[in-house]
């Protein structure tokens, strides 16, 4: 399958007064054409930083890409200047943010914000761009698009703003869409609408999607593959079926067990993951999950495990996969 995006050994740090916070510590993954990939993990695991680095949206300084490469559509992004990135942002890669209120400009009409990219990247005339904006608003399911195109974001409801965000992100038919917690701020019934819309649009346009979320339900509904991140590293990756039915890493298992399911009885306690993620100002030696892991072994404190192949589609970074490990996975 053709790869639209490849991230190789990416390291991103933030320089703060207390020292260097190593937010992303050697991340490898890829996204195929037309695929929806989820990046999941707790807050502070580096998933949002990774996504913003793909667009080079992290503030530098204090942020810094220490090492590694991002290949998008055959070209390296890391070395690109801001000017060159502007040609990619919006045109080749679209982004949807969590909070539709703060990510839309309140002083511009929604129509103008959609047209902006079309005029800049596709050299459309204003009239053509406006016609296309109305078309896009229709596509994302906004009623009365001819009227809505001239309205300001505050005249839209939360769900409609997120639809408008999607229209902006899709305006130039990007090859990759990065959605950073697109439904977290929305109510469930509205979330259902937006997820439906995104699935539908993906089918129609064939865009690749990177979905950043902490909601495993959304992942199960939307995505083909899953990347699980913890403490700035990828600790497991696989297809949704691999991850949901055959998780290998204790952290992935923990995440799945801590979600209550509708068929769970009241007297069965939930299984939380104890403790909190490590402070990436001083990342632990060895595996980052050791301090919270029930199956921790001596080796985990000393050496960091590498991603090992479980099957052709699944890989996990855990010492339990090592032949010498006694209480192997599944115990």
């Amino acid at each position, binding site marked *: 399958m053709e790869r639209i995006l490849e991230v190789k050994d990416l390291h991103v740090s933030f320089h703060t007064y207390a020292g260097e916070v190593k937010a992303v510590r050697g991340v490898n993954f890829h996204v195929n054409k037309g695929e929806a990939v989820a990046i999941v993990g707790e807050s502070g695991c580096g998933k949002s930083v990774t996504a913003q680095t793909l667009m080079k949206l992290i503030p530098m300084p204090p942020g810094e890409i220490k090492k590694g490469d991002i290949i998008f559509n055959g070209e390296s992004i890391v070395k690109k200047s801001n000017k060159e990135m502007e040609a990619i942002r919006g045109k080749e890669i679209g982004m949807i943010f969590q909070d539709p209120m703060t990510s839309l400009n309140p002083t511009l009409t929604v129509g103008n914000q959609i047209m902006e990219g079309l005029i800049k990247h596709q050299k459309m005339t204003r009239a053509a761009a406006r016609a296309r904006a109305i078309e896009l608003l229709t596509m994302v399911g906004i009623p009365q698009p001819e009227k809505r195109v001239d309205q300001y974001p505050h005249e839209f409801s939360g769900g409609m703003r997120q639809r408008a965000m999607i229209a902006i992100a899709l305006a130039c038919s990007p090859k990759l869409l990065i959605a950073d917690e697109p439904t977290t701020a929305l109510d469930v019934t509205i979330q259902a609408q937006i997820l439906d819309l995104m699935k539908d649009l993906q089918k129609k346009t064939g865009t690749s999607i990177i979905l950043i979320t902490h909601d495993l339900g959304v992942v199960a509904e939307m995505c083909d593959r899953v990347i699980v991140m913890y403490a700035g590293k990828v600790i497991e990756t696989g297809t949704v079926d691999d991850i949901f039915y055959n998780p290998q890493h204790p952290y992935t298992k923990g995440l799945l067990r801590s979600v209550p399911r509708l068929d769970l009885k009241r007297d069965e306690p939930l299984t939380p993951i104890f403790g909190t993620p490590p402070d990436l*100002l001083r990342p632990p030696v060895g595996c980052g999950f050791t301090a919270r892991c029930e199956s921790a072994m001596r080796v985990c404190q000393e050496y960091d495990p590498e991603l090992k192949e479980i099957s052709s589609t699944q890989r996990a970074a855990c*010492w339990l996969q090592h032949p010498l490990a006694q*209480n192997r996975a599944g115990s």
Partner: protein
Amino acid sequence: MQLTKEHFEPISVDLRQAEEIKRPSLSFWADVWRRLKMNKVAMASLIFILLLVACAIFIPIFSSHDYYTTNLAGKNKPPSAEHWFGTDDLGRDVFVRVWYGARISLEVGFAAALIDLIIGMIWGGIAGFYGGKVDEIMMRIADILYAIPYLLVVILLMVVMEQGVVTIIIALTITGWIGMARIVRGQILQLKAQEFVLAARSLGADNNRLIFKHLIPNALGPIIVTLSLTVPTAIFTESFLSFIGLGVSAPVASWGTMSAEGLAAMKYYPWRLMFPALFISVTMLAFNLFGDGLRDAVDPRLRK
């Protein structure tokens, strides 16, 4: 690396350890001080202000000259070892007069800021805390006061009262507190909707506790920043009023009156204008730079 069987023995995980906080503990104000210390310009300004205060207190005490003794034989002398900043048209030592002027400027600046703070905090605090009708009426009164041309008030006051430092301070604060009241009101309105205030109320906290334990400590940052920027404004206004002849009167020295007198003789005796003008400018600059630094330290999000 060589992995052995021992490496794969299970270890018990102390779950407490995962909860350990590794970063050093810092209170809000310790954190502000830490950020402020990193800002070299603000720290230099702070040191300058402290020196200015110390000099204004001590130099007039220990100097062999005073601000009012005239010496017509030694008038308009350029700077020398005896008179560091020269003398004026009545033979008075400009160096000492500058420091007396600093006393007046600082007195006016700090007194005006303090009075603004007290009135503004009470007025804005009550308006913000009770909200609704009370807020409406109190803030309209403030708006009306604010609409009266300020120079007119000053001139009227000067006519009614005798000229002097007290009158200037009254003139400055008669409308000056409104800015502080607005800041405090805005802060209180914003803070009282926060969940921690609701939490305190659900525990049964009375208004006193809400105001003094929860609202004011959280509003203190912006209040202090506003305060630090009120001081230079007051100093400048005093100089300006004295310059146009509405401030302190002879023989009292103020940077404003000294500049006005020096202006007439600028061509021949430039030091008489230069020194007071220099002090006004540098003091203003120092207070403003310090205020800016303080604002960044109190609320780092405001900084680009």
